[in-house]
């Protein structure tokens, strides 16, 4: 008989949701997390508030995890790093280093939920001087400042008077190799713009963009309030480079609706960095023999109608390890992955009386 345990790799929102789903259905979930905490990027990178509802990240994550933490059906393995896998559907053997010791776990099916990493804007193809200028930040850097309620210029500790966001950094770019849209950055920039306006009302906020991509309700829940209520200025046109001028940053670009060049001084610049597959995602693809797309995200096989099945029977993938995903996408895919993983181990069994 197939092993009916489901092994979930990665304790971010997708992994948590999948583990909860399996436990709620009365099966056993083994949740493997390399850190000593759950919560994935939102926790590790100290997101101040979630997009789109601006709810406090820690509070929202705690609420999500609470029903799972003392559930006997969920076996959480912290500080555990998967190092290899063998076996096949119904009978996987997964090796890991757990607290310095080699361990092996068995499971009937596996859900990979190893997520993404933020694009590094210091790469050589980048022109924004992320590592040269203290006041050039990424969205994740800005999250930390907002979380601490200390939104100041890193260079001198002063409260900024003018800041801007530059969209699509590391996304939609053939030269960088990331041709895809990272999907969440427009929303997160707008969310942060709102938070900046809340925390530093005197600070003017600009967002330079190619297209604003605010899907579904993000349009009216973030984009419109940012502009209408918080008076964030959206300017169509990208900044091309950043030059230091005195203690300011000179942002140079083209204002495309005015069809005029712009050279404007800013106190801080926030780069809306996109998503790339995490190291863990690439390693899991290798260990389990999962097909990856040209960007090294795990490729799912069912097109738009099956967002979690992989080329390996019994191995499913959920969340941002399959490509740019927001929280809503990630938890939705996780629920689907839990259902399909359980179905795969139960398939041959008669319906329970």
């Amino acid at each position: 008989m197939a092993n009916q345990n489901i092994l979930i790799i990665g304790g971010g929102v997708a992994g948590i949701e999948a583990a909860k789903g399996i436990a709620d259905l009365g099966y056993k979930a083994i949740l493997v997390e390399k850190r000593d905490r759950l919560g994935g990027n939102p926790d590790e990178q100290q997101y101040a508030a979630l997009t789109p509802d601006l709810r406090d990240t820690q509070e929202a994550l705690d609420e999500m995890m609470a029903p799972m933490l003392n559930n006997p059906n969920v076996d959480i393995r912290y500080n555990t790093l998967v190092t290899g896998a063998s076996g096949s559907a119904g009978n996987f053997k997964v090796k890991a280093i757990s607290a310095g010791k080699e361990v092996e776990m068995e499971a009937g099916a596996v859900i990979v939920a190893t997520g993404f990493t933020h694009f590094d804007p210091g790469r050589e193809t980048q022109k924004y001087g992320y590592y040269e200028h203290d006041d050039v930040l990424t969205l994740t850097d800005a999250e930390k400042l907002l979380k601490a309620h200390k939104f100041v210029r890193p260079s001198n500790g002063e409260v900024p008077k003018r800041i801007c966001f530059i969209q699509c950094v590391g996304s939609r770019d053939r030269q960088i190799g990331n041709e895809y849209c990272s999907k969440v950055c427009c929303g997160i920039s707008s969310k942060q713009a709102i938070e900046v306006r809340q925390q530093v009302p005197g600070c003017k906020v600009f967002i330079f963009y190619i297209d604003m991509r605010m899907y579904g309700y993000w349009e009216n829940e973030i984009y419109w309030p940012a502009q209408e209520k918080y008076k964030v200025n959206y300017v169509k046109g990208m900044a091309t480079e950043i030059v230091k001028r005195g203690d300011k940053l000179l942002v140079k670009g083209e204002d495309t609706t005015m069809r005029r060049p712009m050279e404007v001084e800013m106190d801080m610049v926030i780069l809306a960095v996109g998503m790339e597959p995490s190291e863990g995602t690439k390693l899991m693809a290798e260990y389990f023999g999962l097909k990856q797309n040209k960007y090294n995200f795990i490729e799912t096989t069912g097109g738009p109608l099956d967002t979690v099945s992989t080329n390996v029977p019994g191995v499913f993938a959920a969340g941002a390890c399959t490509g740019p995903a927001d929280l809503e996408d990630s938890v939705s895919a996780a629920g689907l992955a839990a259902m399909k993983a359980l179905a795969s181990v139960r398939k041959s069994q008669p319906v329970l009386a």
Partner: protein
Amino acid sequence: MPVDKSQIIEKESVTVEGIELSANWNRMFEQRVIFDYDTDGLDKVTDLAGAESMGWCYQCGQCIPVCPVDQVGEYGPQKIFRKLQLGLDLFTDDDLWKCTTCMNCLRVCPKEVDMIKIMPAVREEAVMEGNVPDELQEVFENTFEYGNPMGESQRKRADWVKDAGVEVPIMKEIKRPVDLLWFVECYPAYHGRGKDATRALARIFKLLGTDYGILGAEEKCSCDSQRLAGETGLFEEFAEHNIGLFNKYKVKKVLVTDPHALNAFRKEYPKHGGKFETIHYTTYLAPLMEKLTFTKKLDYKVTFHDPCYLGRHNGEFDAPRNCLTAIPGIELIEMGRCREQSFCCGGGGGGMWLDGFMADHVSERLSENRVREAVATGADVLAICCPYEVSRFEDAVKSTGNEGKLLVKDIVELIEEAL
């Protein structure tokens, strides 16, 4: 660097620090690089009650192709928004006075950027600061002093009745309530061609046996266009005056000649205590057309101009057309821009009194643009039902060289012609 010729400005004279520069020094270049987004001007607008939506523009640009002023110049909410982000002070800029509040932009705006509220709010501030084009200021003063924008004598407001050929009941004299109070309004009461239509309407009322009365010399301008041009104080004072008369004469239903009055009475007067129903004369006449006995067939091809404040603003598109098509012989040919898409004559929102000012900003008047469109339909007659239009369009027929090709007639004039 190659010179972009469109960026060159030739000044007639240039004085720099007190020294007049001669010869080629008068060639200036417009600064091309944007060095600052000074959004204080935008914030000043959006902080104003009523003008908040100026900040809602997400630059889709749908307003521009339907903005009448952009057809003859460079204008529209999307462009104003960008200029505001770039430091424009709308409160002192000429752009403040170009909008005719025709509402075509709001009709297509997904974000509901509402120039119908933004313009009067910002203009009110400009009026208080005294930053008003001279010709408009004169109209405000005339209205204040004489009760009408032309500065005609208040006492002569009902002089047109003398030549009406029928008795016109005046409320002060008849001393009894009537079914319908006819609010004649300024242009129909004073303007030469306006009075032609006014008298025709009085004669048609007689034929129909309409129980009505006019306010005569007691009536004062409804002031809607002055309100939209920023004179809120004047508007409120006049609204109270007219509402006082309506109350005094126990008026339940008002018939207006002027769609601008219709707009004021329906949307603004209730805020000041007005409790009465208002209809436009075409709405009144349309169902009664079958009661009129026509004796003549008019051999006219007619095109009809939807007034902004009757159609888009107040939703009446059918009544004027029903009046026209009930006239024997008339063939109605629609212009491309008709009904909801109708093109403004340029008279609304204070535009009626800003032709001199606008001449410096546009390639042709809106009324001229509209007359060209009317002529292109092959119509002999441009039918109208807003008192601003007869003078605007008759002037435009002349200035576009179409005299003899196109007649401008009020719908009531056409009705009477066939009786």
